[in-house]
């Protein structure tokens, strides 16, 4: 246990120092990694822990992004206040979508969520909503500056670094929340439903409620990520949130490691950097290269990067 805390402290030190060692552009990329990590964590709660496949989490990411963008653009809300609102809106949306959708099992649920993911960009273009969403034009957001008290205290941070630390702080809160939620009663109940839902119900786990709640919490995490992503990218448009985003999230949790909290971080690193790497290797067929990477990862690490790391440390400890 001490070892674990020690590791986490080192990790935090690295995370805190990194933006001062790399360029602003890299800092921006790292911010996106943290954003994706939160989104993947959300999806992992649903798919990894409670075993329900969602092909539509991009829709919740979009919803979070739009809630944040509209609140900033139309209501003049400060950026930091939009993040919890986006989370709450997505929790409600996820919970409500979960209620009917959870009567569907396995692949049928995957299809229902797929429909949600496919429909989202078109809903965002809907003429009656255009007053708020800006239609296909989207909404351009101002980049937040570091708060005045930091500058006054003699810690000047450029906007990119400030945004990174803001995202890092939110990510820490979200990871702590997930950790608290999943290692206790709720986590065990979710895993029980995934493994054998009849047995779980016999033990007194309210399957429908837990599943809907898992959907809601999962959507909330993804929505928070969407809001942070919108603030980092400074722009939302329907074309940003196509079905491919949802599939990328699913790829992220499988590569990172299902039912693993650090897996979300590994997965985020994968979906952020590997497509760029593939594009650098081949302009003609970047997705073919991406596919090779994906197959390679799944083949060499069948339990995801998190599983492989676990295996390695276990082997080192028991020679």
């Amino acid at each position, binding site marked *: 246990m001490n070892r674990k805390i020690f590791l986490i402290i080192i990790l935090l030190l690295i995370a805190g120092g990194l933006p001062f060692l790399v360029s602003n*552009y890299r800092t921006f990329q790292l911010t996106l990694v943290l954003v994706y990590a939160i989104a993947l964590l959300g999806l992992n709660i649903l798919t990894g822990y409670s075993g329900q496949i969602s092909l539509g989490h991009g829709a919740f990411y979009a919803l979070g992004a739009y809630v944040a963008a509209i609140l900033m653009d139309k209501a003049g809300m400060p950026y930091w206040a939009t993040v919890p609102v986006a989370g709450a809106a997505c929790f409600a949306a996820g919970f409500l979508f979960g209620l009917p959708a959870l009567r569907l099992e396995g692949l049928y649920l995957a299809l229902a969520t797929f429909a949600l993911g496919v429909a989202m960009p078109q809903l965002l273009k809907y003429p009656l909503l255009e007053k708020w969403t800006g239609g296909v034009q989207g909404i351009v957001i101002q980049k937040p500056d570091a708060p005045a008290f930091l500058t006054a205290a003699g810690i000047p941070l450029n906007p990119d670094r400030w945004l990174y630390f803001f995202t890092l702080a939110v990510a820490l809160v979200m990871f702590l929340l997930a950790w608290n939620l999943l290692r206790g009663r709720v986590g065990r109940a979710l895993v029980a439903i995934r493994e054998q839902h009849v047995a779980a119900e016999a033990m007194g786990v309210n399957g429908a409620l837990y599943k809907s709640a898992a959907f809601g919490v999962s959507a909330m995490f993804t929505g928070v990520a969407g809001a942070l992503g919108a603030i980092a990218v400074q722009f939302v448009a329907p074309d940003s949130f196509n079905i491919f985003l949802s599939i990328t999230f699913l790829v992220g949790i499988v590569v990172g490691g299902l039912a693993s909290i650090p897996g979300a971080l590994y997965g985020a690193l994968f979906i952020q950097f590997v497509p760029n790497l593939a594009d650098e290797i081949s302009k003609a067929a970047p997705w073919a290269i991406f596919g090779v990477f994906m197959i390679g990862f799944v083949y060499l690490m069948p339990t995801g990067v998190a599983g492989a790391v676990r295996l390695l440390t276990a082997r080192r400890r028991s020679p």
Partner: protein
Amino acid sequence: MKRSIVFLAISLGLAAPAMAQKKYDPGASDREIKIGNTNPYSGPASAYGTIGKSIAAYFKMVNDQGGINGRKVNFLSYDDSYSPPKTVEMARKLVEQDEVLFLFQTLGTPSNTAIHKYMNMKKVPQMMVATGATKWNDPKDFPWTMGWQPNYQSEARIYAAHILKTKPNAKIGVLYQNDDYGKDYLKGLHDGLGARKSMIIKEVSYEVTDPTIDSQIVQLQASGADVFINITTPKFAAMAIRKAYDIGWRPTQYLNNVSIGIKSVLEPAGLEKSVGAITLGYLKEPTDKQFENDPAIVKWREFMKKYYPEGSLVDNLNVYGYSVGQTIAQVLRQCGDNLTRENIMRQAASLKSYRVDTLLPGVMVSTSASDFAPIEAGQLQRFDGKEWVRFGDVVGK
């Protein structure tokens, strides 16, 4: 003797500014000019990716011929899959990490909107973007962004003027794609008709995701319109032309420039059904018979064979890439040894009737400090069943 000394002094004085010491911003040096670009090489809009490839091929040719003022062009082009967040990331990579001198021909209206503010805040030129939206011509608020092709609004205004002149009592029916592109055209049409806006008796729209537009065409016919303005992308343009003909509707038809490819639109629609369609052209269409032996198109075909052999010889997007390549090469030649971002904007904004040989005869590239719309002219042309026949004068500025 005295005269020749004066002459020498004057010519030295004139030469001095040109020989002034070389000035560079990041991305430029004695040996190279680094230019950045994003294009959708994958994803839903990947058909446009050929523009990026043909521009890369054009620069390869320029480099083989010795470069521009002795400098090689290093063209860095990344895939953004037509996804705005990816465009932001790639634009930042190009500006902050690769340190390019400027971005050129970044493609797509949403993608360019996403980086519009960023580029202007960074004061890095967002040069000749590959989209026809009207908002890129706004030098006062966005002095670092410039378009290239005729914008949608000015094209629509030319159609409006033509209708007012030739058919002042027309009843106009409009079909448009329900997005910023379609609405941009519609606004130009309204502005062009001005007080006579009531001539439009019916406006119907479709979504780019609709499977067919049959019912829209039937509605337009039922409205009694005798002029049909067809603001659609290629797939829908072909469907609209065919359906209108098949149900016996024979209005005067205006077809927007986006969809005038003979191979890609008119053949699928049926060449005999497309007879009489009017459009505004500005590029030489490579499948048009009249340009079969045109020196510029012949040269373009040779270029394609040598530098981009896998590219399509019937795709006018490849003519587009070649033409925009010529334009930027001219801007860079004008810059001489002063390769600062500011000078690039200044030179791009002082193109005086520059002639690109793959544009229609009489269409010039012109800009000024208050006019960031390089091509604003074109010539009306009518389809005769085989080729586009130009008529009237070159219109627009």
